[in-house]
């Protein structure tokens, strides 16, 4: 009996989530544009730009007022025949490199671009050193002959008891 109730609850939950996602899709599809091809080009550019209000969202995905305004700017500039690079430059002049999800390699972004590789190299170096160190001491631990003997005796005792 409780199984049926559980199933029912899960069913309701699934239905609710389904409804929710339909509503979300409906909201995103809300502004109907007369030119879907242009809109696709707007989104391609907007996906490379960070929304400064939400910071972890692209301008394509964000619902912030500023993101809506900037999408409008991209649309107007594309209509005016500007290239993608011209539009990206327009954004960088106003908001800085931070607005680009793919920032250029410059003096002040050097650490951002090379940092992970430096860390990887350092980690690799530590790993190699450790492995080499271990090879030099077989078994990984240096025991005195007495200690080895005692260990052997303990092991033998264990097998005898079985």
């Amino acid at each position, binding site marked *: 009996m409780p199984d049926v109730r559980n199933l029912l609850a899960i069913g309701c939950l699934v239905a609710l989530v389904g409804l929710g996602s339909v509503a979300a899709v409906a909201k995103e599809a809300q502004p109907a544009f007369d030119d879907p091809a242009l809109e696709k080009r707007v989104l391609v550019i907007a996906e490379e730009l960070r929304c*400064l*209000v939400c*910071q972890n969202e692209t301008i394509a995905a964000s619902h912030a*007022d*500023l993101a809506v*305004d*900037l999408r409008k*700017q991209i649309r107007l500039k594309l209509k005016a025949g500007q290239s993608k690079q011209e539009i990206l430059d327009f954004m*960088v*002049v*106003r*908001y*800085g*490199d*931070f607005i680009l999800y793919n920032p250029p390699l410059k003096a002040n972004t050097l650490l951002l671009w090379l940092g992970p590789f430096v860390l990887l190299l350092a980690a690799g170096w530590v790993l190699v050193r450790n492995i080499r160190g271990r090879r030099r001491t077989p078994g990984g631990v240096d025991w005195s002959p007495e200690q080895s003997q005692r260990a052997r005796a303990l092991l033998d005792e264990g097998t005898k008891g079985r």
Partner: protein
Amino acid sequence: MKKALVPLLIFAVLMGFLAVGLGLKPREVPSPLINKPAPLFSLPTLDAPQQNLSAQDLRGKVWILNVWASWCVACRIEHPLLVEFAKTSTVPIYGLNYKDKREDAVRWLANYGNPYTRSLSDTEGLVGIDFGVYGVPETFVIDKQGVIRLKQIGPVTPEVLRDDILPLLRKLGA
């Protein structure tokens, strides 16, 4: 003994990074417009909508541009300070009324006081985009040559006014 210190050292370095990180303000993105000429604009003013005010009209004097809106809650925090500052007549404050309705803006100023010499109506927010505005309120200090010298993101606090804005204004000869 030396080996045991390695994790401790790594931990200390990590703590150092985290401690510095606590003091950073990731929401404040440095503006590329600092020490660059302020964007050109020509906008109608709140008090005289049929009359435009342009960037050239303000050449030759040090002035403050304060981006505000009646819908902006944080603007109310800094507003009394701006009203007080305007009374000292150090430099003129021009308002950029960002994405606002004229009636709402006029009523807001009537309610909370008007520190602005003039307020520009940027109903579409286009001049705001030119100034790289992303979080109202924002405040700019612009020098006699029309160059942006300082940008404050978020409300102007008494500390920012005392430690950053006033010394800069003195330096600029205002």
